[in-house]
């Protein structure tokens, strides 16, 4: 039993470190802000969550310390990080950052342009 739990701890922490490394490589390699936001906001979340889970299991099983704070940390990370990724990419888009050349389609462009035109010509509050 102890061996299985220790293997589980090693696996979760390894997975966490690997995904954190993937995040870093992704940020370095990806071409534009949106694709980087993918790497930064998600693989990092899963990586850190996985590490926290490993730490939680380690302290629970090997040290006999049931740490609620770690679980809360996992939940908070889980709730806040997608919002962070969403806000970053939305702010970038609204500020007019161009997506990379590779981008094959853009459904959002016309909507944003239309909204911008409307707010430019008349101050519409209902938009």
């Amino acid at each position, binding site marked *: 039993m102890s061996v299985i739990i220790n293997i589980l701890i090693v696996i979760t922490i390894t997975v966490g470190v690997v995904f954190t490394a*993937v995040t870093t490589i992704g940020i370095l*390699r990806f071409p*534009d802000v949106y*694709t980087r936001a*993918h*790497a930064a906001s998600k693989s990092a979340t899963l990586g850190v969550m996985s590490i926290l889970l490993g730490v939680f299991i380690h302290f629970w099983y090997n040290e006999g310390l049931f740490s609620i704070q770690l679980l809360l940390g996992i939940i908070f990370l889980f709730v806040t990080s997608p919002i962070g990724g*969403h806000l970053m*990419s*939305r702010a970038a888009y609204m500020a007019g950052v161009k997506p990379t050349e590779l981008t094959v389609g853009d459904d*959002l462009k016309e909507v944003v342009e239309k909204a911008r035109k409307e707010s430019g010509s008349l101050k519409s509050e209902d938009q």
Partner: protein
Amino acid sequence: MAFQILLNVFIAVTWMFMTSSFSASTFVIGYLIGLTLLFLTRRFFKSRLYFWKLWAALKLTLLFLKELTLSNISVFMLVIRPKLNLQPMFFALPTELEHDWEITLLSSLITLTPGTIVVNVSDDQRTLYIHALDVDDVDEAIESIKNSFEKAIMEVSRG
């Protein structure tokens, strides 16, 4: 739904008073009896019984964890590939969800599954604009999100 849970707790507390033993195990037994009573009287409730909703929420969580793992692995494969051939794309996803919290939940789930980020929610809340990392087929991507997450969220909220 909240009313049903409250009723169930009330039945459990009544059971504790009837047996005059105030321990956690008595509460659990009373709660189970309450579940049975709620199930027997289910046609008097307007909405669905709440434990079906809990079951649907559990299924949604499991589905989400599965998708999270699978798509993280796919991003991992994408990143370590020597030649970076991405096909990023912004596409529109029409949604049938109505309540604010459903849309928030859907967009959080979409954002957390790698390969997709919600960039914008349209003003009438009928369309989500999603940035995808690597799209071969837009319709397929839309279909898969619609069939998995949207359906599961509807399962939780409806009825």
